[in-house]
């Protein structure tokens, strides 16, 4: 906790060397004790807090306090409470920063899976069968359950989540409940994570209701028209670009790290989406021969190009 005397020094314009050092050391201590992520300091990566990072966080905290007008009614607060008040503001500031970073990176598959597993453990019964974990609403027999993930998803609603972490967790809870009700039996937890991730739509702006554009009539070969449309159902502009970069290597070989840096999406999410896209493209059509396969992929690439350059 910040020392009252040093907070009063700052506020009265008489900050001493000892006072400033104490404040920065307190920030560093709290960052390490509570294991705050390093990336709340702009431009820093890694896992260990250094002195420079602590200073950067301290200065950013002070600027945030002043910009947000947190000191407007400071005269109301007794001096004995000032140190704790500043400590509370630091915690709020860090919570705010972490929330902003999460919003920028969007919903990661890993994060979604963590939430799903948390909901399964907390609200339902989980059981281990032959090394695989299952979740059920009321302890139903695992052997009696059979389900088709893709089919289930067709009948279940999408949950649109934006900037509120609480809404994401509530949506995950509801999605888990929907899946269990639909299946009517036990569901493998891994499958549950996949299905719920597909049901959650992360929305950054108000374009959530914009539909994916219908396939145009300019596809090279109309024989592949319906197949391409089915394979690329639900692909938007960003996903199209990602598939072109990663699967089709349009701009050279790109690793998951390169993709993460380019699209600001977590690697686990990219991996999940690319695997899913690859499977969908592969399962949508089985070519008769090599040339047929090449034509199919060419059509897929051209359609992806169209989607990538559209406004959706």
């Amino acid at each position, binding site marked *: 906790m910040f020392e009252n005397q040093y907070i009063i020094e700052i506020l009265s314009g008489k900050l001493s060397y000892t006072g*400033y050092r104490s404040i920065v050391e307190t920030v560093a201590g*709290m960052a390490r004790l509570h294991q705050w992520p390093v990336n709340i300091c702009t431009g820093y990566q890694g896992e260990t807090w250094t002195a420079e990072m602590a200073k950067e966080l301290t*200065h950013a905290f*002070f600027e945030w306090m002043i910009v947000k007008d947190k000191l407007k009614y400071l005269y109301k607060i*007794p001096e004995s409470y000032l140190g704790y008040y500043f400590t509370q503001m630091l915690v*709020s500031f860090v919570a705010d920063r972490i929330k902003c970073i999460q919003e920028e990176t969007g919903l990661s598959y890993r994060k979604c899976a963590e939430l799903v597993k948390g909901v399964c453990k907390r609200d339902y019964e989980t059981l281990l069968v032959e090394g695989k974990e299952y979740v059920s609403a009321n302890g139903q027999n695992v052997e009696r359950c059979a389900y088709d993930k893709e089919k289930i998803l067709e009948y279940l609603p999408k949950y649109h989540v934006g900037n509120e972490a609480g809404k994401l967790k509530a949506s995950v809870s509801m999605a888990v409940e929907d899946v269990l009700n639909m299946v009517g039996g036990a569901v493998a937890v891994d499958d549950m994570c996949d299905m719920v991730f597909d049901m959650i739509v992360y929305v950054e702006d108000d374009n959530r209701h914009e539909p994916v554009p219908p396939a145009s009539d300019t596809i090279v070969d109309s024989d592949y028209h319906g197949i391409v449309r089915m394979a690329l159902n639900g692909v938007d502009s960003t996903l199209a670009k990602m598939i072109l970069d990663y699967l089709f290597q349009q701009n050279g070989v790109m690793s998951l790290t390169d993709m993460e840096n380019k699209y600001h999406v977590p690697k686990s999410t990219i991996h999940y989406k690319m695997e899913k896209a690859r499977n969908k493209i592969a399962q949508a059509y089985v070519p008769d021969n090599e040339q047929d396969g090449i034509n199919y992929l060419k059509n897929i690439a051209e359609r992806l190009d169209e989607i990538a350059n559209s406004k959706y």
Partner: protein
Amino acid sequence: MNVIVDFLQNTAPLNESLYDMSVEMSEIEEVKVLFRNAHVELGRLAMTAQKHEGQIWTVKSRYYDYQGCLQQTNRPYMVLLRSEVEMVNGVAVARACPISPFVDMAAHEDLVCKEEDIVGFPFLLEEWNEQPVLTELLDVLIGNCADSVFEKKTCITSDQADVEAFRDAEVRLAAYLSHSVVSLLEYYESTQNRCALDVMGGTTAKTVYLNEKLADGFRRGKYQAYAAKAGNNSGDQKKITVADWNLPYQLELRKREEGHVITISPVGPVTLVNQDGIELKAAVADNRMVYYPIAKGLYRISDGNNRQSQEIRIK
């Protein structure tokens, strides 16, 4: 783990010496300029006031409970009084709700005050954390707060698990407040409301009991021996005397029908202040300062000569 919940659950003090770092004078100047341009106003008038429902007070960070044990917290509290002051066996008690600046942790239907000019920041009223508290714990009056300033939160923006963890942490921490009343009730149960005097100091107060029952049925000789051992003046069965306890004066406490009598000798620049901060008037007789009638509770004796003060409790 939610950052706020993690902060509340980890209450251990930081060991700053582990993070020794060098700083530049230019960094200090930068901070000074930042705050100079912000034109921050400091300082507030200290007020003494009668305690009433609807007031917001800070809570002392340390107090001696009725067992004489020192209780401390490194987390300062602000509380809203939710009831008028009541007397429990002659001791002032009120019901209070802690307030929290972490409005993001408010759940559906929690009361939130968005006005910043009441305590200096928007706050959440922890109605679900209402505690009984001895009013002697209340330190500084912040201001008054009407029910109309509160709004009920009507939507869910925080995770239910985080909210529950936040509430658990806050309820656990607020035991510091209710312990004051719990120890009072335990004291009365174990001592049958026996009169005693606590002299505060160190981690445990020194307690002297009034030997009311011993005065009956003893021959004078036996009583004198026992009274001497217990530190009581054998000449008067209903008196506690405190002397030679590193105090520059002698302190006596007597019990009467209408209240207690405190006697301080010799006469000097000594003042007796009650828990509301009001200085009591003494009658001077035979080189002694006599205060009567004195109710049960917490008092502070200030010695002007030595600039010392001593806290005592009559219970």
